[in-house]
């Protein structure tokens, strides 16, 4: 049955949808106004959900139309959902404020294509992400996944250059391939067990061939959408070619949507099915992503591509939590330190990467290019921007007290505790490599210009400030260790943690 605060979940789902419908109907420059009005409302609802969850210490549930599963579907929020809801709301709000200068409808015309599309799509991405976090039914999650794709792909080609259409189309092909594999897995699971409700399925699912096939299909599909090595080739051109606010949303949030469903699948639906081999394989792919993508990032000549490859590397860290969460005693994945570390990595990467793409956009706007070799002197011209880039970098590298540090520390703790020392090596080498590509940019930026630096356009202070605030959030996220980190484990099966460290 629905919990007393369950209606909050409905509000969370409907707020961005209502906003985007009103924006679509009113059209023109009203789209921006409606979107900016919707954002604080959504943020307040997300925070309210987190507070309600914290107070009640149990999952929020809403049974749609009073029809209980397996006939009906439920919305369900546990600690993971609440943390992601708040993160996404914060990043969307910041991106909205940041994008105002870039996606303002010109005075001369009643409506312009790119701004109108951007504000509608931004709300669509938000709505789809919320559905991913709240869905309690595998088919519902499929629909959410597709909505997310449809909202994200056009963001890639907002400025209408041929190469961005190519990147968008390639992204769409990968995404559709992924979602159909996922749907095929859903069909097999329904055929075998007759339900798609996550809680009911978890109770009946058994390690047998049909579950292995379904799980493998769904996992590969979700990996393609999350851009895990070696299914990552679509991501760099798509994320680097998009306008800065769109890149921020794509890189910080959209890839986390399919990742979140993967976590639901492995930890909640079939924790005992993949076995140690499956978990180690996923971890190995993550490790390969960290090492290969970091090295490729080091070799990039353009800033936005470097940041996109850094996203691929940071996605790799998310997958280290699967082998680390595997408990050999019970033979299944348990919600413990590793899961908390992995989700914290997702959250701190979201804020840091959004900030980083914003700073790259500001540098591009000011210089007219983003060639790293010619960034000399930009730190003197745009000190706040470069400082924000550096702070975001601190979190990506994993220096204390940042969120990235705490995330990697928890993963390291789990690795040492479980005697899986090889992941320790991967985490440490990955940290060194990311320090390499961050300092490569910073060294150029604070160095002397090799050609006289001319700023093409002034950079508004408030846009720099928004990137700085996001970067600061990412750095200060490490302080959640003092308490709020337990939010992640509310209504999760398994251990209560983490303060023993």
């Amino acid at each position: 049955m629905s919990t007393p605060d369950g209606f909050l979940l409905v509000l969370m789902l409907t707020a961005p949808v209502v906003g985007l419908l009103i924006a679509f109907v009113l059209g023109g420059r009203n789209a921006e106004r409606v979107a900016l009005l919707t954002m604080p409302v959504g943020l307040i609802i997300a925070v309210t959900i987190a507070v309600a969850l914290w107070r009640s210490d149990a999952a929020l549930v809403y049974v749609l139309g009073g029809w209980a599963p397996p006939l009906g579907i439920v919305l369900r929020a546990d600690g993971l959902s609440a943390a992601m809801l708040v993160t996404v709301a914060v990043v969307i709000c910041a991106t909205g404020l940041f994008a105002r200068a870039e996606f303002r409808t010109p005075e001369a015309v009643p409506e312009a294509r790119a701004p109108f599309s951007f504000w509608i799509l931004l709300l669509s991405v938000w709505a789809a992400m919320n559905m991913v976090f709240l869905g309690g039914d595998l088919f519902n999650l499929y629909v959410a996944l597709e909505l997310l794709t449809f909202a994200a792909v056009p963001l890639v080609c907002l400025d209408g250059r041929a190469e961005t259409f190519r990147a968008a189309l390639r992204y769409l092909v990968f995404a559709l391939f992924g979602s159909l594999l996922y749907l095929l897995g859903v069909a097999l699971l329904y055929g075998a067990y007759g339900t798609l409700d996550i809680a009911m399925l978890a109770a009946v699912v058994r390690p047998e061939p049909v579950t292995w096939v379904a799980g493998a299909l769904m996992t590969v599909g979700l990996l393609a959408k999350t851009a895990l090595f070696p299914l990552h080739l679509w991501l760099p051109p798509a994320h680097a070619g998009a306008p800065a606010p769109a890149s921020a949303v794509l890189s910080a949030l959209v890839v986390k949507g399919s990742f979140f469903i993967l976590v639901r699948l492995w930890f909640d639906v079939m924790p005992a099915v993949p076995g140690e081999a499956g978990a180690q394989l996923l971890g190995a792919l993550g490790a390969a992503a960290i090492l290969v993508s970091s090295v490729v990032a080091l070799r990039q000549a353009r800033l936005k591509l470097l940041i996109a490859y850094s996203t691929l590397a940071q996605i790799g860290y998310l997958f280290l939590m699967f082998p680390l969460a595997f408990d050999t005693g019970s033979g299944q994945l348990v919600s413990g330190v590793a899961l908390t570390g992995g989700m914290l990595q997702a959250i701190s990467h979201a804020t840091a990467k959004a900030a980083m793409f914003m700073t790259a956009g500001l540098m591009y706007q000011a210089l007219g290019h983003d060639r790293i070799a010619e960034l000399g002197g930009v730190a003197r011209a745009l000190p706040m921007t470069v400082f924000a880039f550096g702070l975001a970098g601190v979190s990506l590298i994993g220096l204390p007290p940042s969120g990235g540090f705490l995330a990697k520390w928890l993963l390291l703790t789990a690795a040492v505790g479980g005697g899986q020392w090889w992941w320790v090596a991967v985490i440490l080498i990955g940290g060194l490599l990311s320090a390499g590509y961050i300092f490569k940019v910073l060294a150029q930026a604070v160095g002397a210009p090799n050609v006289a630096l001319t700023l093409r356009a002034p950079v508004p202070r408030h846009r720099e400030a928004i990137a700085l605030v996001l970067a600061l959030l990412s750095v200060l996220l490490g302080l959640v260790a003092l308490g709020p980190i337990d939010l992640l484990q509310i209504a999760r099966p398994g251990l209560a943690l983490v303060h023993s460290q």
Partner: protein
Amino acid sequence: MTSVTLFGLLGALLVGLGLFGLLVHPHPLRKILSFNLLGGGVFLLFGVVARRGAGAGLGGDPVPQALVITGLVVAFAATALAVVLLLRLFQESGSATLRTDAPAGKDAGGAADH
């Protein structure tokens, strides 16, 4: 061979063909068509699941049928979006290839507009 087995095998065949096309054909339009073939196979499997899970005296389990209808709408929307992107790519660049090393002369026109 029962009809359920037959349709199950046909669904698997369609899924295989679609996957093959999606992975092997470089041309985007063929990829879009392969995606629809793959989708058709998946929907057929849902139909098989519905027939197999039907209660006594009923033609089928209604839940997978509802899922198929939703899936069809989603696949249709996906195809429309893909075709529009492909058309715009062709308008901007004069070619409809996904390769980034496409002939430079053809690309220049689209890129210069901005």
